[in-house]
């Protein structure tokens, strides 16, 4: 591939600065020793990281977010696998309609989803609980799980399954021993992308959280609404570092391009 000229590289440097600056500044400010937002010009301090220890609600929210993400993406994958196998490989009336319905949460603003679910759960008399959060996140992450599982199930060679049947495999055995292992990359990457989407979701969650089930992004958001101090910087810094670690691992395992852009031609 051709090289970029100096002008292009200068532009590129500015864009990289633009993209990374706000993320880096959070991580740097987290090390300040002062009581207000400032760059740690007089030495690095872990003061604000220790301060998280005095605020158990942040740790509780972190745990809530992890559970919520794990649960909703697991349910999403369990529902998406049979749907993807049917949509990806069988011809049937209403197939396009179903696919549109399943992908439609991507088009709906999360704010609208939050309002709609809040109304639904209060009206249905179910109240707002941890389970409402799971249900809401399930709707949000389902399209991501479905999309990644679909791409692997579409590419599945029907003859491989037929071979198993001709050798005497029952429907269930065929699924467990042949189909599932073959779509496993899609299932795993779909689960991970769902997990991340759920973990980061804030707009819808604001509406359907309770004081006992506040996710970490919601907790941060509500805290920032009152005041911005170095504590949120240290919490965010930890969140950013964790995400970057996950990101690098994912890039090694699946390739970020495949996960976010979809399977390319190469």
């Amino acid at each position, binding site marked *: 591939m051709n090289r970029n000229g100096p002008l292009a590289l200068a532009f590129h440097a500015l864009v990289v600065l633009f993209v990374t*600056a706000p993320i880096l500044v*959070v991580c740097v400010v987290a090390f300040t020793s002062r009581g207000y937002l400032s760059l740690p010009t007089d030495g690095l301090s872990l003061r604000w990281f220790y301060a998280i220890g005095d605020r158990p609600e942040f740790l509780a929210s972190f745990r809530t977010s992890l559970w919520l993400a794990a649960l909703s993406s697991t349910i999403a994958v369990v529902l998406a696998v049979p749907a993807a196998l049917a949509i990806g*490989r069988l011809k049937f009336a209403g197939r396009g309609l179903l696919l549109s319905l399943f992908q439609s949460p991507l088009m709906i603003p999360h704010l609208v989803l939050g309002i709609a679910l809040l109304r639904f759960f209060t009206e249905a008399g179910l109240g707002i609980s941890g389970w409402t959060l799971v249900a809401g996140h399930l709707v949000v992450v389902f399209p991501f799980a479905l999309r990644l599982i679909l791409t692997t199930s579409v590419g599945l060679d029907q003859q491989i399954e037929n071979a198993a049947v001709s050798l005497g495999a029952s429907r269930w055995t065929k699924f467990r021993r042949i189909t599932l292992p073959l779509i496993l990359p899609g299932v795993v990457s779909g689960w991970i992308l769902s997990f991340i989407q759920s973990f980061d979701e804030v707009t819808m969650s604001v509406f359907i959280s309770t004081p006992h089930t506040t996710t970490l992004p919601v907790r941060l958001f509500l805290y920032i609404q009152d005041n911005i101090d170095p504590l949120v910087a240290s919490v965010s810094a930890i969140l950013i570092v964790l995400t970057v670690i996950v990101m690098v691992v994912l890039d090694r395992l699946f390739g970020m391009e495949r996960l976010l852009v979809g399977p390319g031609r190469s």
Partner: protein
Amino acid sequence: MSAATTDTAIAAPKSAPRERFSATPYLLNLPALLVIGTLLLVPLIMTLILSLHSFGMYTGVTDDISFKNYAEIIQDSYFHEIFLRTFRISLLTTLLCALIGAPEAYILHRMRAPWRSIFLLVMLGPLLISVVARTLGWAMLLGSTGVINQTLTGLGILSAPVQFMYTETGVIIALAHVLMPFMVISVWAALQRLDPQVENAAISLGASPFTVVRRVILPQIMPGILSGSIIVFALAASAFATPAIIGGRRLKVAATLAYDEFLSTLNWPLGAAIAVLLLVGNIIIIVGCNRLVERRYAQVFQ
């Protein structure tokens, strides 16, 4: 923030194993249909109905049906201003994303082996970082005692700090940062479809690098830029966390307005009406613009 990445259209399978009517595909879809259908369609319909109810300070939500809330939004200049601001912010954010994201994607596309994937990761990675954390970064950079102001006044370039927080400029900058990856993804996908030999063919015919970009590359990635713009515009128009943090209570957009009506004023019907308008506007933009782009560039998509 949802990552509404390029939605993959799945072509119908060429040969189905059985073509006689079979219940299997429906049974396989049933669990997902029940769950997603219930959790999506029922709440949306209930919201639509809610938006037709009315609200009184003492009566709360009443069960009558009227278009009162919509009439109020259409007549009141307070709401006009907010919707207009939302539109302006979304448009400028989209423009900024296109002006930065499209050239950047092309530069990435031209990079050599290790750098290409490293910087692609740098550009797309922020998508996975919590939008609250990213917006917080901008709040720290843009504040009156923030890094940018301190640096500029420290260097003597500014005599007094410039106010970015609680301004449309601040919201646009932060939103452009949050939504940029979607533009890069979209243009990147279009660039991947390019035949690399076409560029070489243009060069062999004597075209300058600038002419190659303008006459050969740009027309081919235009659909990518446009579909990226649709995604960015739709997400900017319905963005909540970023305008809420950078814009604060003073600079309201449609989403933060609905939030306040719902959770502060407790006027649920009015909040629902704003949400319905937001949803309808979103769908019109996404579906309508996609149709236009597809028709205009039918031969490029084929």
